[in-house]
């Protein structure tokens, strides 16, 4: 199995001062995907930015994993609505001036 780009969860727990159970809960909620190899759990490095955000939301706002899931869903919606607004602005510009 290719372990390249995978970070052991235990290292992340030390680094961010969180319990391994926090990562297990995130995994249960489907927020992250944990890979297990020879009894060691790993997280893909591409997920680090999201995980850091989840840790901040959890530690600074006291929000549990179910809440983090809801927050992430809403943030995704905001992002897609913002993209939609940008697209519509661009399309609107087509009709703003008479050419």
């Amino acid at each position, binding site marked *: 199995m290719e372990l390249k780009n995978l970070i052991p969860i235990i290292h992340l727990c030390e680094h961010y*001062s969180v319990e391994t159970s926090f990562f297990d809960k995130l995994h249960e909620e489907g927020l992250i995907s944990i890979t297990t190899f020879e009894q060691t759990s790993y997280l893909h490095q591409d997920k680090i930015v999201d995980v850091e955000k989840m840790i901040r939301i959890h530690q600074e706002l006291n929000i549990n994993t179910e809440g983090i899931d809801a927050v992430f869903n809403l943030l995704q919606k905001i*992002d897609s609505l913002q993209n939609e607004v940008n697209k519509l602005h*661009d399309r609107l510009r087509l009709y703003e001036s008479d050419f």
Partner: protein
Amino acid sequence: MTYIDYYKVLGINKKATENEIKKAYRKMARKYHPDLNPNDKEAERKFKEVNEANEVLSNPENRKKYDKYGKDWKHAEEFEKAQQQRQYQRGGGQRTTGRFSEEDFSDFFSSMFGGGYQRRSEVKFRGQDYNAELQLELEDVYKTHKRTLTVNGKNIRLTIPAGVKNGQVIKIKGYGGEGINGGPKGDLHIKFSILNHSRFKRDKDNLYTTVDLDLYKALLGGEVIIDTFDGKVKLNVKPETKNLTKVKLKGKGFPVYKKEGQFGDLYITYRIKLPTNLSNQEKELFKELAKLR
């Protein structure tokens, strides 16, 4: 430097209990937290204010000092000197740890509390992501090119791929703020703002423009030459072309982002310009023509 009413910031009264302060802080933090308000500068400012208020009011010693000197904070200077002296004797000022730095605190805070801010946790954090906006003209993004940007005093050589869209954000890993407590650097997010002062309108990868035709070319047909981002293009106008006729030039539109050699289409609308200030002879000839219809 202005006096900041921390009680007002948290929406509580001066007799609020520790529990009420904690509750008010959590409520405000949830409202203005930067992770929940991406790209919202106003929320970021308020979040810092809320943090500052909590830092003062949740610490009984700081709260006491704030309540005592509050509006007369300028008189707290002596207190501050004494505080600094004590810190010095302890072997140096406190170091900033955690996600926020001293510059995240107001001058008012620094003046009263000496800027020493001790975060409770020792968590390593990735550096702050920087957001920058780059304004480019539509012509600039027709071809892939390199550009040097200066972000926070650092020069970054950036390749701007052809076909970048207005509002598109690209991430440059590791060009954000320094990590805290040994955490990794943040990223730089560049948002493209594409200005369009050209004769073309852009919708996704397609371009739209209008071309004026004189009456005679519209009736009898002929050739027109138009300027595109890729040079001049010769168009054959069919005889009896109607006003607002649209023609599509396949592959003459805008480059498709990150798909080399692929282009959108160019849509041309013909606008027929009628002759004005007709001479007597022209009027007569038009009358003759009218009789023939």
